Protein backbone atom coordinates (compact mmCIF):
# COMPACT_ATOMS: atom_id res chain seq x y z
CA UNK A 1 0.00 0.00 0.00
CA UNK A 2 1.24 3.51 -0.82
CA UNK A 3 1.96 5.90 2.02
CA UNK A 4 -0.65 8.50 2.88
CA UNK A 5 -1.53 11.03 5.54
CA UNK A 6 -4.43 10.07 7.78
CA UNK A 7 -7.00 12.31 9.41
CA UNK A 8 -9.94 11.36 11.59
CA UNK A 9 -12.28 14.37 11.87
CA UNK A 10 -15.12 14.37 14.39
CA UNK A 11 -17.48 16.82 12.68
CA UNK A 12 -18.81 17.70 9.24
CA UNK A 13 -17.22 21.15 9.48
CA UNK A 14 -13.81 19.63 10.11
CA UNK A 15 -14.33 17.15 7.27
CA UNK A 16 -15.18 19.96 4.85
CA UNK A 17 -12.04 21.84 5.85
CA UNK A 18 -9.85 18.79 5.29
CA UNK A 19 -11.45 18.15 1.89
CA UNK A 20 -10.95 21.76 0.83
CA UNK A 21 -7.34 22.00 1.90
CA UNK A 22 -6.19 18.42 1.30
CA UNK A 23 -3.96 17.35 -1.54
CA UNK A 24 -5.67 14.47 -3.42
CA UNK A 25 -7.88 13.48 -0.49
CA UNK A 26 -10.12 10.44 -0.34
CA UNK A 27 -12.85 9.66 2.14
CA UNK A 28 -12.76 6.40 4.10
CA UNK A 29 -16.22 5.13 5.06
CA UNK A 30 -16.52 1.44 5.99
CA UNK A 31 -13.39 0.66 4.01
CA UNK A 32 -14.65 -2.69 2.75
CA UNK A 33 -13.89 -1.68 -0.83
CA UNK A 34 -11.43 1.17 -0.43
CA UNK A 35 -8.92 -0.60 1.84
CA UNK A 36 -8.65 -3.66 -0.45
CA UNK A 37 -8.40 -1.29 -3.43
CA UNK A 38 -5.55 0.61 -1.76
CA UNK A 39 -3.83 -2.69 -0.94
CA UNK A 40 -3.85 -3.50 -4.64
CA UNK A 41 -2.44 -0.07 -5.46
CA UNK A 42 -5.54 0.81 -7.47
CA UNK A 43 -6.27 3.76 -5.18
CA UNK A 44 -3.48 5.89 -3.76
CA UNK A 45 -4.75 8.97 -1.93
CA UNK A 46 -2.28 11.45 -0.44
CA UNK A 47 -4.70 12.13 2.37
CA UNK A 48 -7.18 9.62 3.78
CA UNK A 49 -10.03 11.26 5.68
CA UNK A 50 -11.64 8.68 7.96
CA UNK A 51 -15.35 9.41 8.51
CA UNK A 52 -15.83 6.81 11.25
CA UNK A 53 -15.87 9.41 14.03
CA UNK A 54 -18.28 11.86 12.36
CA UNK A 55 -21.39 11.13 14.40
CA UNK A 56 -23.51 13.57 12.33
CA UNK A 57 -23.40 11.01 9.52
CA UNK A 58 -24.76 8.13 11.61
CA UNK A 59 -28.38 9.18 12.21
CA UNK A 60 -31.24 7.00 11.05
CA UNK A 61 -34.67 8.57 11.45
CA UNK A 62 -38.06 9.19 9.87
CA UNK A 63 -38.59 12.84 8.92
CA UNK A 64 -41.73 13.98 7.06
CA UNK A 65 -42.57 10.38 6.19
CA UNK A 66 -39.16 9.84 4.64
CA UNK A 67 -36.65 7.32 6.03
CA UNK A 68 -33.35 9.18 6.25
CA UNK A 69 -30.28 7.00 6.51
CA UNK A 70 -27.02 8.75 7.39
CA UNK A 71 -24.11 8.03 5.06
CA UNK A 72 -22.14 6.24 7.79
CA UNK A 73 -24.97 3.88 8.78
CA UNK A 74 -23.56 0.39 8.53
CA UNK A 75 -25.34 -2.38 6.67
CA UNK A 76 -25.87 -4.29 9.94
CA UNK A 77 -27.55 -1.22 11.47
CA UNK A 78 -29.92 -0.79 8.52
CA UNK A 79 -30.72 -4.52 8.51
CA UNK A 80 -31.52 -4.46 12.23
CA UNK A 81 -33.33 -1.10 12.31
CA UNK A 82 -36.96 -1.44 13.49
CA UNK A 83 -37.78 1.78 11.60
CA UNK A 84 -36.48 0.46 8.28
CA UNK A 85 -38.04 -2.93 8.93
CA UNK A 86 -41.43 -1.31 9.47
CA UNK A 87 -41.38 1.34 6.73
CA UNK A 88 -39.32 -0.29 3.95
CA UNK A 89 -38.87 -3.99 4.76
CA UNK A 90 -37.32 -4.70 1.35
CA UNK A 91 -34.49 -2.30 2.21
CA UNK A 92 -33.79 -4.06 5.53
CA UNK A 93 -33.78 -7.40 3.69
CA UNK A 94 -31.35 -6.04 1.11
CA UNK A 95 -28.97 -4.72 3.76
CA UNK A 96 -28.97 -8.16 5.43
CA UNK A 97 -27.90 -9.75 2.12
CA UNK A 98 -24.82 -7.58 1.50
CA UNK A 99 -21.46 -9.36 1.76
CA UNK A 100 -21.12 -11.31 4.99
CA UNK A 101 -21.65 -10.54 8.67
CA UNK A 102 -18.22 -8.97 9.15
CA UNK A 103 -18.55 -6.82 6.05
CA UNK A 104 -22.00 -5.71 7.19
CA UNK A 105 -20.49 -4.71 10.53
CA UNK A 106 -18.22 -2.21 8.74
CA UNK A 107 -19.64 -1.33 5.32
CA UNK A 108 -21.83 1.77 5.01
CA UNK A 109 -24.61 2.94 2.73
CA UNK A 110 -22.71 6.11 1.82
CA UNK A 111 -19.61 4.18 0.83
CA UNK A 112 -21.54 1.68 -1.25
CA UNK A 113 -23.57 4.33 -3.05
CA UNK A 114 -20.58 6.61 -3.73
CA UNK A 115 -18.57 3.70 -5.11
CA UNK A 116 -21.39 2.58 -7.45
CA UNK A 117 -19.98 -0.87 -8.03
CA UNK A 118 -22.06 -2.40 -10.85
CA UNK A 119 -22.71 -5.45 -8.67
CA UNK A 120 -23.46 -3.63 -5.41
CA UNK A 121 -26.90 -4.08 -3.85
CA UNK A 122 -27.82 -0.62 -2.56
CA UNK A 123 -27.94 1.19 -5.93
CA UNK A 124 -30.89 -1.00 -6.99
CA UNK A 125 -32.82 -0.02 -3.86
CA UNK A 126 -32.13 3.68 -4.29
CA UNK A 127 -33.23 3.62 -7.91
CA UNK A 128 -36.38 1.55 -7.38
CA UNK A 129 -37.43 3.48 -4.29
CA UNK A 130 -36.80 6.87 -5.91
CA UNK A 131 -34.39 7.89 -3.17
CA UNK A 132 -32.73 11.28 -2.79
CA UNK A 133 -28.98 11.49 -2.22
CA UNK A 134 -28.20 14.51 -0.06
CA UNK A 135 -24.63 15.75 -0.25
CA UNK A 136 -22.74 18.52 1.48
CA UNK A 137 -24.06 20.94 -1.17
CA UNK A 138 -27.25 19.67 -2.89
CA UNK A 139 -29.91 17.02 -3.33
CA UNK A 140 -29.56 14.53 -6.19
CA UNK A 141 -32.30 12.13 -7.30
CA UNK A 142 -31.23 8.52 -7.64
CA UNK A 143 -32.24 8.69 -11.33
CA UNK A 144 -29.59 11.38 -11.90
CA UNK A 145 -27.00 10.01 -9.49
CA UNK A 146 -25.82 6.69 -10.98
CA UNK A 147 -23.97 7.58 -14.18
CA UNK A 148 -21.85 4.61 -15.27
CA UNK A 149 -19.66 1.83 -13.84
CA UNK A 150 -18.10 3.22 -10.65
CA UNK A 151 -19.20 6.68 -11.77
CA UNK A 152 -21.72 8.96 -10.06
CA UNK A 153 -22.92 12.55 -10.26
CA UNK A 154 -20.70 13.45 -7.29
CA UNK A 155 -18.23 16.24 -8.04
CA UNK A 156 -14.65 16.19 -6.75
CA UNK A 157 -14.70 16.89 -3.03
CA UNK A 158 -18.47 16.39 -2.78
CA UNK A 159 -19.66 13.82 -0.28
CA UNK A 160 -22.91 12.13 0.72
CA UNK A 161 -24.51 13.17 4.01
CA UNK A 162 -27.58 10.96 3.89
CA UNK A 163 -29.96 9.04 1.68
CA UNK A 164 -33.67 9.79 1.93
CA UNK A 165 -36.15 7.03 1.06
CA UNK A 166 -39.79 7.96 0.45
CA UNK A 167 -42.43 5.54 1.65
CA UNK A 168 -43.72 3.00 -0.87
CA UNK A 169 -46.73 0.68 -0.86
CA UNK A 170 -44.61 -2.46 -0.90
CA UNK A 171 -41.20 -3.52 -2.13
CA UNK A 172 -38.81 -6.44 -2.22
CA UNK A 173 -35.32 -7.40 -3.36
CA UNK A 174 -33.98 -10.67 -4.71
CA UNK A 175 -30.49 -11.48 -5.75
CA UNK A 176 -28.69 -14.29 -7.48
CA UNK A 177 -25.26 -13.97 -6.02
CA UNK A 178 -21.74 -14.95 -6.80
CA UNK A 179 -21.09 -17.45 -3.99
CA UNK A 180 -17.49 -16.46 -3.21
CA UNK A 181 -17.67 -12.68 -3.36
CA UNK A 182 -21.38 -12.53 -2.46
CA UNK A 183 -21.83 -9.68 -4.95
CA UNK A 184 -24.92 -9.78 -7.16
CA UNK A 185 -24.62 -11.59 -10.46
CA UNK A 186 -28.12 -10.19 -10.82
CA UNK A 187 -30.11 -8.30 -8.21
CA UNK A 188 -33.62 -6.93 -8.79
CA UNK A 189 -35.52 -4.49 -6.60
CA UNK A 190 -39.23 -3.98 -7.29
CA UNK A 191 -41.14 -1.19 -5.57
CA UNK A 192 -44.83 -0.41 -5.85
CA UNK A 193 -45.53 3.29 -5.46
CA UNK A 194 -48.86 5.09 -5.59
CA UNK A 195 -47.81 6.61 -8.91
CA UNK A 196 -46.47 3.39 -10.43
CA UNK A 197 -44.09 0.48 -10.31
CA UNK A 198 -40.30 0.83 -10.42
CA UNK A 199 -37.98 -2.04 -11.28
CA UNK A 200 -34.23 -1.53 -10.77
CA UNK A 201 -31.55 -4.03 -11.71
CA UNK A 202 -28.01 -4.33 -10.37
CA UNK A 203 -25.21 -6.73 -11.28
CA UNK A 204 -26.42 -7.14 -14.86
CA UNK A 205 -26.21 -3.87 -16.81
CA UNK A 206 -23.14 -3.11 -18.93
CA UNK A 207 -23.40 0.49 -17.71
CA UNK A 208 -24.23 -0.40 -14.11
CA UNK A 209 -27.53 -0.22 -12.26
CA UNK A 210 -30.54 0.55 -14.46
CA UNK A 211 -34.34 0.72 -14.48
CA UNK A 212 -36.11 -1.86 -16.58
CA UNK A 213 -38.65 0.56 -17.96
CA UNK A 214 -40.42 -1.95 -20.25
CA UNK A 215 -41.20 -4.11 -17.25
CA UNK A 216 -42.36 -1.07 -15.29
CA UNK A 217 -44.78 -0.05 -18.05
CA UNK A 218 -46.13 -3.57 -18.36
CA UNK A 219 -46.57 -3.95 -14.61
CA UNK A 220 -48.27 -0.56 -14.37
CA UNK A 221 -50.91 -1.99 -16.70
CA UNK A 222 -51.23 -5.31 -14.91
CA UNK A 223 -49.15 -6.27 -11.89
CA UNK A 224 -48.99 -9.97 -12.68
CA UNK A 225 -46.22 -12.43 -13.39
CA UNK A 226 -47.51 -13.34 -16.85
CA UNK A 227 -47.26 -9.70 -17.95
CA UNK A 228 -43.50 -10.15 -18.11
CA UNK A 229 -43.42 -13.33 -20.17
CA UNK A 230 -42.98 -11.58 -23.53
CA UNK A 231 -40.33 -9.15 -22.35
CA UNK A 232 -36.63 -9.67 -22.90
CA UNK A 233 -33.51 -7.63 -22.26
CA UNK A 234 -30.75 -7.42 -24.85
CA UNK A 235 -27.86 -9.76 -23.91
CA UNK A 236 -25.33 -7.38 -25.47
CA UNK A 237 -26.40 -4.66 -23.06
CA UNK A 238 -25.63 -6.94 -20.13
CA UNK A 239 -22.36 -7.53 -18.34
CA UNK A 240 -20.64 -10.73 -19.36
CA UNK A 241 -17.84 -12.37 -17.42
CA UNK A 242 -16.48 -15.69 -16.17
CA UNK A 243 -19.40 -16.03 -13.76
CA UNK A 244 -22.28 -15.41 -16.16
CA UNK A 245 -22.73 -14.46 -19.80
CA UNK A 246 -25.00 -11.68 -21.05
CA UNK A 247 -27.82 -13.98 -22.18
CA UNK A 248 -27.82 -15.76 -18.82
CA UNK A 249 -27.91 -12.47 -16.93
CA UNK A 250 -30.76 -11.18 -19.12
CA UNK A 251 -32.68 -14.37 -18.39
CA UNK A 252 -32.03 -14.10 -14.65
CA UNK A 253 -33.32 -10.52 -14.56
CA UNK A 254 -36.69 -11.65 -15.89
CA UNK A 255 -36.88 -14.70 -13.64
CA UNK A 256 -36.09 -12.70 -10.50
CA UNK A 257 -38.53 -9.96 -11.50
CA UNK A 258 -41.26 -12.54 -12.05
CA UNK A 259 -40.65 -14.03 -8.62
CA UNK A 260 -40.78 -10.60 -7.00
CA UNK A 261 -44.03 -9.74 -8.75
CA UNK A 262 -45.50 -12.99 -7.52
CA UNK A 263 -44.40 -12.23 -3.96
CA UNK A 264 -45.60 -8.64 -3.97
CA UNK A 265 -48.76 -9.35 -5.92
CA UNK A 266 -49.93 -12.14 -3.67
CA UNK A 267 -49.87 -10.45 -0.29
CA UNK A 268 -47.89 -7.25 -0.71
CA UNK A 269 -45.29 -8.85 1.47
CA UNK A 270 -41.56 -8.57 1.13
CA UNK A 271 -39.14 -11.16 -0.07
CA UNK A 272 -36.38 -13.31 1.24
CA UNK A 273 -33.14 -14.72 0.07
CA UNK A 274 -32.94 -16.79 -3.04
Amino acid sequence: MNKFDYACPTSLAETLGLLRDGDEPMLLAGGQTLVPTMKQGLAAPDLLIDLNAVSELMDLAVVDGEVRVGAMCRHAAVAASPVVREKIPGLADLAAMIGDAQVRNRGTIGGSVANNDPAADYPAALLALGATIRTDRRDISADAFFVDLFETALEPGEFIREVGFPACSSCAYLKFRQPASRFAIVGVFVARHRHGVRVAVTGAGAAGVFRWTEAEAALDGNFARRTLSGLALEPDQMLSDIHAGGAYRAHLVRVLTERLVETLGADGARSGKK
Partner: protein
Amino acid sequence: MMRLETEINGTPVAAEVESRTLLVEFLRDQCRLTGTHVGCDTSQCGACVVHLDGVAVKSCALLAIQCQGRKVTTIEGLAEGETLHPMQQAFHEHHALQCGFCTPGMIMSALDMVARHEGDLDERTVREELEGNICRCTGYENIVKAILDAAEMMRP
Protein backbone atom coordinates in the same frame (compact mmCIF):
# COMPACT_ATOMS: atom_id res chain seq x y z
CA MET B 1 4.74 7.20 11.83
CA MET B 2 1.71 7.78 13.99
CA ARG B 3 1.12 7.21 17.66
CA LEU B 4 -1.52 4.53 18.26
CA GLU B 5 -3.07 4.08 21.67
CA THR B 6 -5.51 1.26 21.88
CA GLU B 7 -6.54 -1.63 24.10
CA ILE B 8 -5.85 -5.20 23.10
CA ASN B 9 -7.34 -8.08 25.07
CA GLY B 10 -7.90 -5.79 28.03
CA THR B 11 -4.37 -4.38 28.10
CA PRO B 12 -3.58 -0.79 27.06
CA VAL B 13 -1.12 -0.76 24.16
CA ALA B 14 0.81 2.20 22.78
CA ALA B 15 2.87 1.87 19.62
CA GLU B 16 4.21 3.71 16.61
CA VAL B 17 2.51 2.59 13.40
CA GLU B 18 2.46 3.71 9.80
CA SER B 19 -0.91 4.99 8.63
CA ARG B 20 -0.92 2.18 6.05
CA THR B 21 -0.34 -0.62 8.57
CA LEU B 22 -3.28 -3.00 8.56
CA LEU B 23 -4.72 -4.10 11.86
CA VAL B 24 -3.80 -7.72 11.12
CA GLU B 25 -0.19 -6.71 10.40
CA PHE B 26 -0.03 -4.72 13.61
CA LEU B 27 -1.41 -7.62 15.66
CA ARG B 28 0.86 -10.24 14.15
CA ASP B 29 4.10 -8.37 13.45
CA GLN B 30 4.22 -5.75 16.20
CA CYS B 31 2.16 -7.29 18.99
CA ARG B 32 3.27 -10.87 18.14
CA LEU B 33 -0.31 -12.04 18.50
CA THR B 34 -0.12 -14.62 15.74
CA GLY B 35 -3.39 -16.39 16.51
CA THR B 36 -5.08 -14.03 14.07
CA HIS B 37 -4.31 -15.44 10.62
CA VAL B 38 -3.91 -14.04 7.14
CA GLY B 39 -5.67 -16.36 4.72
CA CYS B 40 -6.85 -14.73 1.52
CA ASP B 41 -5.89 -11.13 2.38
CA THR B 42 -8.88 -10.06 0.26
CA SER B 43 -11.51 -9.99 3.03
CA GLN B 44 -13.26 -13.13 1.89
CA CYS B 45 -11.96 -16.02 4.00
CA GLY B 46 -12.46 -14.75 7.56
CA ALA B 47 -9.22 -16.18 9.03
CA CYS B 48 -8.34 -12.67 10.28
CA VAL B 49 -11.58 -11.93 12.15
CA VAL B 50 -11.15 -10.08 15.45
CA HIS B 51 -13.53 -7.97 17.53
CA LEU B 52 -13.43 -4.19 17.46
CA ASP B 53 -15.42 -2.84 20.38
CA GLY B 54 -17.08 -6.26 20.61
CA VAL B 55 -18.07 -6.50 16.95
CA ALA B 56 -16.54 -8.98 14.47
CA VAL B 57 -14.48 -7.35 11.72
CA LYS B 58 -11.98 -8.55 9.14
CA SER B 59 -8.66 -7.17 10.33
CA CYS B 60 -7.15 -7.33 6.83
CA ALA B 61 -9.59 -4.62 5.72
CA LEU B 62 -9.02 -2.24 8.62
CA LEU B 63 -6.13 0.09 9.37
CA ALA B 64 -4.43 -0.26 12.74
CA ILE B 65 -4.77 3.50 13.28
CA GLN B 66 -8.55 3.12 13.06
CA CYS B 67 -8.39 1.36 16.44
CA GLN B 68 -7.26 4.57 18.15
CA GLY B 69 -8.91 4.68 21.57
CA ARG B 70 -10.91 1.53 20.93
CA LYS B 71 -10.90 -2.05 22.17
CA VAL B 72 -9.59 -4.96 20.14
CA THR B 73 -10.15 -8.58 21.14
CA THR B 74 -8.26 -11.41 19.48
CA ILE B 75 -8.41 -15.19 19.92
CA GLU B 76 -5.66 -14.84 22.54
CA GLY B 77 -8.01 -12.77 24.70
CA LEU B 78 -10.74 -15.35 25.19
CA ALA B 79 -9.40 -17.96 27.61
CA GLU B 80 -9.16 -17.25 31.34
CA GLY B 81 -5.75 -18.63 32.20
CA GLU B 82 -5.85 -22.35 31.47
CA THR B 83 -9.64 -22.37 31.17
CA LEU B 84 -10.85 -22.19 27.60
CA HIS B 85 -13.75 -19.96 26.66
CA PRO B 86 -16.95 -22.07 26.21
CA MET B 87 -16.75 -21.50 22.45
CA GLN B 88 -13.15 -22.72 22.35
CA GLN B 89 -14.07 -25.68 24.55
CA ALA B 90 -16.96 -26.60 22.23
CA PHE B 91 -14.67 -26.49 19.18
CA HIS B 92 -12.28 -28.78 21.06
CA GLU B 93 -14.96 -31.24 22.17
CA HIS B 94 -16.67 -31.45 18.78
CA HIS B 95 -13.35 -31.57 16.96
CA ALA B 96 -14.53 -28.63 14.86
CA LEU B 97 -11.25 -28.34 13.01
CA GLN B 98 -8.72 -30.27 11.04
CA CYS B 99 -5.77 -28.10 10.05
CA GLY B 100 -6.91 -25.32 12.38
CA PHE B 101 -5.99 -22.40 10.15
CA CYS B 102 -9.51 -20.98 9.97
CA THR B 103 -10.34 -21.76 13.61
CA PRO B 104 -9.45 -18.44 15.31
CA GLY B 105 -11.60 -16.54 12.80
CA MET B 106 -14.38 -19.10 13.12
CA ILE B 107 -14.46 -18.70 16.89
CA MET B 108 -14.40 -14.89 16.80
CA SER B 109 -17.21 -14.88 14.22
CA ALA B 110 -19.16 -17.46 16.21
CA LEU B 111 -19.08 -15.25 19.31
CA ASP B 112 -20.34 -12.26 17.31
CA MET B 113 -23.11 -14.47 15.92
CA VAL B 114 -24.18 -15.65 19.37
CA ALA B 115 -24.18 -12.06 20.67
CA ARG B 116 -26.25 -10.67 17.77
CA HIS B 117 -28.82 -13.45 17.96
CA GLU B 118 -28.76 -13.41 21.77
CA GLY B 119 -27.95 -17.10 21.73
CA ASP B 120 -31.07 -17.96 19.77
CA LEU B 121 -29.47 -19.93 16.95
CA ASP B 122 -30.52 -22.84 14.78
CA GLU B 123 -28.51 -24.83 12.28
CA ARG B 124 -29.72 -22.88 9.25
CA THR B 125 -28.91 -19.55 10.86
CA VAL B 126 -25.42 -20.71 11.84
CA ARG B 127 -24.72 -21.93 8.31
CA GLU B 128 -25.90 -18.66 6.79
CA GLU B 129 -23.98 -16.59 9.30
CA LEU B 130 -20.78 -18.50 8.51
CA GLU B 131 -20.75 -17.23 4.94
CA GLY B 132 -17.82 -14.94 5.74
CA ASN B 133 -15.62 -17.73 7.09
CA ILE B 134 -14.16 -20.33 4.81
CA CYS B 135 -12.97 -23.75 6.00
CA ARG B 136 -11.34 -25.98 3.41
CA CYS B 137 -11.07 -29.10 5.59
CA THR B 138 -14.09 -29.95 7.65
CA GLY B 139 -17.16 -29.47 5.53
CA TYR B 140 -18.43 -27.32 8.42
CA GLU B 141 -20.41 -30.12 10.08
CA ASN B 142 -18.61 -30.09 13.42
CA ILE B 143 -18.14 -26.32 13.35
CA VAL B 144 -21.91 -25.89 13.20
CA LYS B 145 -22.40 -28.42 16.00
CA ALA B 146 -19.80 -26.69 18.17
CA ILE B 147 -21.36 -23.26 17.73
CA LEU B 148 -24.86 -24.53 18.53
CA ASP B 149 -23.55 -26.33 21.59
CA ALA B 150 -21.58 -23.31 22.80
CA ALA B 151 -24.58 -21.03 22.26
CA GLU B 152 -26.55 -23.28 24.64
CA MET B 153 -23.74 -23.34 27.21
CA MET B 154 -23.38 -19.57 27.08
CA ARG B 155 -27.05 -18.88 27.83
CA PRO B 156 -27.27 -16.75 30.97
